[in-house]
């Protein structure tokens, strides 16, 4: 399955890309996807799928758009 990952703000420069499509085996979880990108695990973040937050053990589906962002606080 393919999943598109969009990085936000400083994560773009840490991960080395702004937007990228990943070919993943069926059953890959959000946590599994996060292991594939170069982001510090301990760093607070919000991961959303199609506009809703996901937990690390949530299973991804073909065509998902996953967004990884620092915890912005609205300026």
């Amino acid at each position, binding site marked *: 399955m393919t999943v598109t990952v969009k990085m*936000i*703000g400083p994560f773009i420069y840490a991960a080395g890309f702004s937007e990228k499509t990943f070919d993943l085996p069926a059953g890959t979880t959000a946590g599994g996807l996060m292991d594939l990108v170069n982001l510090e695990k301990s760093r607070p973040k919000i991961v959303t799928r199609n*506009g*809703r*937050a996901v937990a690390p053990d949530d299973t991804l589906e073909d065509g998902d758009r996953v967004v990884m962002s*620092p915890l912005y606080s*609205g*300026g």
Partner: protein
Amino acid sequence: MFGWTGNILRVNMTDRTYKKETFSEEFAKKWVGGRGFAMKILWDELEPGIDPLGPKNKLIVALGPIAGIPAPNTGKTVVAAKSPITGGYGDGNLGTRVSEQLRKAGYDMMIVEGVAAEPTMLYIEDDKVEFLPASEVWGKGTYDTNDWIYAKYGKGVGVLNIGQGGENLNLYAMVRSLEGRAGGRPGIGAVMGSKKLKAIVVKGTKPIPQADPEAMKKLGTADLRTVHEMDKKSGWSIQSTTGVLAWCNEVAALPVRNMRKTQHPDAWKIDGERLNDARIATYGCPTCTMRCGITIHDREGRESELDYENIGMLGANLEIFELDQVGSLNYLCDDYGIDTISAGAVLGFYADAIDRGAITGDFKFGDAEKAKELLRIASLREGEVGNMLADGCMRMAQKIGKGSEAYAMHVKGLEISAYNCKFCPGMALAFGTSPIGAHHKESWVITFELKQTVRESYGREKAEKVIELQRIRGGLFEYILACRFPWIELGWELEHYPIYFNTVTGLNWTLDDFWKVSDRIYALMKFFWLREKPDWNRTMDYPPASWFDPANADTEGPIAGKILEMDKYEELLDHYYDLRGWDKRGIPTKKTAAALDLQDEARTVEKYGKLED
């Protein structure tokens, strides 16, 4: 008394007099500074019902006990008055050297009264105050005015000034300082203009009284370095606040087309990535080591310093997706001295009203050149359209009618900042209950709503979070006086701030002591409203009707078909009032007032409106 100078500078523009007054340690401990001082002075000294743009309103410039001290990020100053756009208490903070210079001149606060006979600049140097003619720059923008001031006094002075927007009483005129800094969204620049006060310039040479200045210097300098290192490590200031635009677009919270929509496929063209690529300079406030002012060349080749609210409201909300054109609109707002958020909301509302046939006109979403012209006539109050635009969304809708009130995007008269909350109940509550009108500075809970709760929820935990953040953002940082960014964006712990406070004052406060001050100020802001509007009711804490209208729900994307529900919002509002100890109207009870040491104020307000026990 350490930490505070204990002095107020009272200036009368009518008779060109000034005097130094003192305040007590009890006053200092009860109200701390900044917003707290301003709120209490305006409560005590303003007659209810006065014209905010008349001679009886007072302009307050207020500092806090850590303002101007070398520590993260203390270069902030509060400007306040009765707001001409809301009719309630209004204020804002801005980065300026005034925070240090006014304290070094020996004052924690200025109270400006009356109206000058001709355009005037106040020059303050320690105990000396001069009333100088400013006709030479009356009618000029804030950048030319700053150049004029710097040519006279050098760049080290503290400056507050206004542009043509303030001079012409545009109701969302701001106070400006250096580079892109501005503050006082609720029309504080118009109050300054009504007094024919073009600029305040301050130079001080005295030490700021501190209990342990050596310890503070050592601590503050080390912490400034640490915050800088935290910023570098996190990469936050690569895009600064503008990084959130792309996120809002992804999660459907971006203001698009007068907040009719929450996403746009072209949003990427004006996002933080593009802004960082176009950067020619970066500016920041005094004593800041995580500078956020990303500066680009605008369409006309001028320097324009942008943050998220600017690109959100002058870009996405107007469907203008050319970054240099957004830069131009931002430059014009800064130069005219009007608020970019309200300007974006006003033009968005105007385009929407034309689009829906409620009014005739030739402005359309996406028309950057026409938007420039509209900003000019709104700032100069030129013609019928310019005068209408200068009055803000609420008054525009009252004039236009035809149901336009539903999509005039304001709360209490103040336009909503750049977060579209048609399906963010907690953030809608934050905007709704902000006592100065819809301002993001008071509380911001969208990531909390999405990550730690269910977005659909109207649960009590959302009201608790809104209040928690109002105590910190609308409270602590607004009266101790420091920028909230090290804490909210880098995770610089709140516990540092009582340490700074205790080091300069010699007191021994904990964070809990501050939360009581925060609640006291919020309660008095509500009493101010009740005194002005005895018929106050909870509808004043409602967001606009369009956020509850199923016909306004997104038709595609992650929140398709979703919209706020009024009955559930009412329940959330009940939770909020209950947690605060306020009645069903949203007014503090006598019991709450007593717990916050506001018995005298409660007795006063009861002359105007009844309080519940």
